[in-house]
């Protein structure tokens, strides 16, 4: 395939051209309550072309091989239009030429297992949740996504890499009269099928939490000191800081670029943040990004001071900073954009009891329920929480969403816990869905967060 791709871009009159071909496979088993709603294994494919010409840079994506010449034509037209209209000049950071075929090491290759076993396993976990008190229904899916990526550019790089992500995830719904409460559940990873086995306890626990939420009270809106558990701290790190460490977010906003200069102090001494997609086994793992650049760990913030940023080749050149291998696309329908991959706050020396003691009065919030970033503002939801009085955990509360501003919130992190957990399922929708957006970390104590509530 690599040779075929090279022949497609040979002869293109451009300073730079690359092409990526992907085959995406997806196996799905989808339960709603007791009922199977969908089962299937399918395959799709397509091409992404990018052209750099005289400082203009443009891309085109197509499904059919016979449309690749048209894609090249459209990308050339886009690049030329940018130059002709005085648009942004794009150059790429220099990188080593790479020629590598990256294989997969899986603990149980799901692609070699039949669909019956996947249905049986999903049904077992689904039934376990449905058996718990007050549970009205579930929505639970087995999803296995494979990406076979082949990448070639005009500089001589050619890389192919296979990635397979598996998870069993969904939600469990408890109901009493008109009150409905739901809790998310997810197990999975990028290192094989076997990590999905023997996980009964996870599904039972999530169903029990959903049942308990029927007796929880909505949190009262206001400003609180909070302790976030590792799962929620991961969402916070991703939303509150991670997106602003993606260079493409700020590259064309001069005032924010100045505020985010390396060396600026943005956080408290307690905060060190790392992006590391090279940790084996975790869901965000990959070797090469979708520009054929090897990913490397980046310390984004060191004891509160900005020390690094996540880049594509073009943003690295634009900022004059080293490439990091973070240009990632959802699949063959998209050109790559800067994505953070695996991000976490580095653990420190405080136990959960220490953190709750330091909290005194406030909220102990657990597990992420989605988040969103727009510029420097962010929100994220907690699946449940507890009122804390004098360091002691009290009654359960629900309906918790938090809002903050990057430039004030990171300064308000008072202390960091000693444990380290990474998520088993990704999912970030910055224009494209990134199923490999791993996150996590230790528990953290943050002062004065705005919490929406009844």
């Amino acid at each position, binding site marked *: 395939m690599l040779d075929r791709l090279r022949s497609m871009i040979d002869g293109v009159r451009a300073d730079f051209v690359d092409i990526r071909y992907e085959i995406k496979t997806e196996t799905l088993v989808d339960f709603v309550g007791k009922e199977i709603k969908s089962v299937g294994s399918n395959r799709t494919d397509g091409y992404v072309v990018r052209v750099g010409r005289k400082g203009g840079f443009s891309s085109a994506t197509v499904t059919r091989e016979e449309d690749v010449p048209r894609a090249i034509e459209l990308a050339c037209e886009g690049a030329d239009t940018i130059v002709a209209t005085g648009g942004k000049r794009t150059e790429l950071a220099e990188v080593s030429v790479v020629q590598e075929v990256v294989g997969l090491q899986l603990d149980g290759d799901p692609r070699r297992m039949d669909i019956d076993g996947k249905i049986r396993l999903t049904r077992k976990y689904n039934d376990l949740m449905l058996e718990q008190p007050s549970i009205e229904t579930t929505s639970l899916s087995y999803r296995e996504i494979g990406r076979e990526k082949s990448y070639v550019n005009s500089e001589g790089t050619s890389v192919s890499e296979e990635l397979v992500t598996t998870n069993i995830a969904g939600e469990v719904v408890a109901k009493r009269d008109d009150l409905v409460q739901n809790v998310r559940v997810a197990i999975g990873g990028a290192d094989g099928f076997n990590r999905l086995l023997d996980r009964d306890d996870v599904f039972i626990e999530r169903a029990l939490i959903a049942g308990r939420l029927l007796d929880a009270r909505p949190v009262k809106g206001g400003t609180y000191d909070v302790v976030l558990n590792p799962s929620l701290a991961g969402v916070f790190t991703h939303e509150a800081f991670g997106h602003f460490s993606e260079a493409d977010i700020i590259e064309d906003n001069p005032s924010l670029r100045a505020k985010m200069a390396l060396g600026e102090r943005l956080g408290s001494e307690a905060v060190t943040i790392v992006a590391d997609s090279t940790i084996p086994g975790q869901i965000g793992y990959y070797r090469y990004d979708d520009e054929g650049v090897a990913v490397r760990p980046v310390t984004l913030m060191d004891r509160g001071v900005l020390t690094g940023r996540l880049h594509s080749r073009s943003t690295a050149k634009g900022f004059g900073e080293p490439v990091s291998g973070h240009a990632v696309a959802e699949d063959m329908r998209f050109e790559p954009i800067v994505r953070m991959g695996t991000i976490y706050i580095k653990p420190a020396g405080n136990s959960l009891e220490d953190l709750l003691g330091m909290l005194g009065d406030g909220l102990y919030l657990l597990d992420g329920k989605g988040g969103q970033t727009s510029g420097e503002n*962010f929100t994220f939801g907690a699946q449940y929480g507890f009122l804390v009085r004098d360091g002691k955990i009290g009654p359960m509360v629900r309906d918790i969403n938090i809002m903050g501003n990057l430039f004030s919130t990171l300064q308000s992190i008072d202390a960091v816990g000693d444990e380290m957990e990474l998520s088993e399922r990704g999912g970030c929708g910055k224009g494209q869905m990134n199923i490999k957006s791993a996150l996590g970390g230790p528990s953290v104590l943050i002062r004065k967060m705005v919490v929406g509530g009844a």
Partner: protein
Amino acid sequence: MTDIPEMRKLLELAARVSDQAEVFHSRDDAGSLSMRNGKVTEMSATIQSGYALRMIRDGMIGTAYTKNLLYPGEMVDNALASMKGKVQAGFSFPGPADIPEPSGEEGSLSSMGFHDLHSRSIRVLDHLSGKVKDGQVDVAAGRGVAETRIMNTSGLDVRSRRPAMYIFASLLFPNTETGVRKLYHSSTAGDFPLQDLDGLVDIYRAGLPEVDIPSGRMKVMFTPDTMYTLLWRLSAAASGRSFHNRISPLQDKRGRKVLSKKFTLYGDPTDPEEVNRRFFDDEGVPTGEHTVFKDGVFRNLVLNLDYADKLGEEPSGTGYRGGMWGGETISMQPSPSLNCSRIAPGDSSMKDMIAGMDRGVMILGVLGAHSGNILNGDFSVGLNPGYYVEGGEIRGRVKDGMVAGNVYQVLKNISAVEDRLHETPNGGRYPAIVLDDVSVAAK
């Protein structure tokens, strides 16, 4: 429309091994550009197509999809293999319907190039530049043609071709990425109306001062672009899926008044004003006006073929392949979805609505609409931005504020509904609505 021979061949193959079969095809040909801080930063194009197959045999359904239809036999095999899941299907694919053919009247949209898009965007930029002191003007624009075709063994063969273009203007407040935005959307080649851009500038200027506000309960205005916060929750509850699984807060409330009489919600993909006008849904069922709430009374569920059958109802032309997070259309099964939704207009002008707010928040953008317990109707969203109104006048934009509540509570207390509808980036057309006594949290 393209690819007819391939579709027919696939349908014929599927018909040989099933009782009923359906082939769905979609194609998108689009181009877009972004201008940030006065310069073009991105131009890109896409030509995507794909096929989805559904087969019913002995009351069970099998499904498959692909993008390049190189091996139709493999696709049929995949659909047969998926029947291992023993997914029940009691419904039948619809037969032929009298559905209007695409008009083909699309002006120059299908041939619109990057230069044309650029010149229309520059016009917007030139008009706004100089009016936004210390802030930033961003413009995004795009054009495209989306096609859908569905054939089935009941004799249905329908197609839709939907040309469209958009220009999206954003004014960012100084030193932030927070701003106010306005969409121009058209099914023919056109230019952003300058009076709409002037209106955007007025809104921007009103939000320049940042203000601290106290937490408490007050009036809250959801502007049209933020209405999806409330509608996601109502749509989830009115979905046939929630009714079938008996988890809808609207269960057993059909025909009962559950919201303010000022609230009427319906969908109408055939509305002549609709840019993505459709006369059939993604299952080939004819579309039309479908009322969910009328004067506060819960009237109808939102159904696809499957849930209509399970609940013993008539199909409502509201089965679409899609989800909250986009995704590849062909890979998703049709599910209940109220497309092209509208909230009926009221009788208040925007000016009067603001003047009538003694103390409150006007929400122009939200963060976190997808978080929280959607099915239960709970919402808790960040203001991004939200303006503080006192004594009937906008005082400035709120620093770090959130609005929270339950949709079934807050929509009982509607004090005003705007007298006109606005097209929104999420696809619906809505008026602004002012709600009484909503919880606002601020730092």
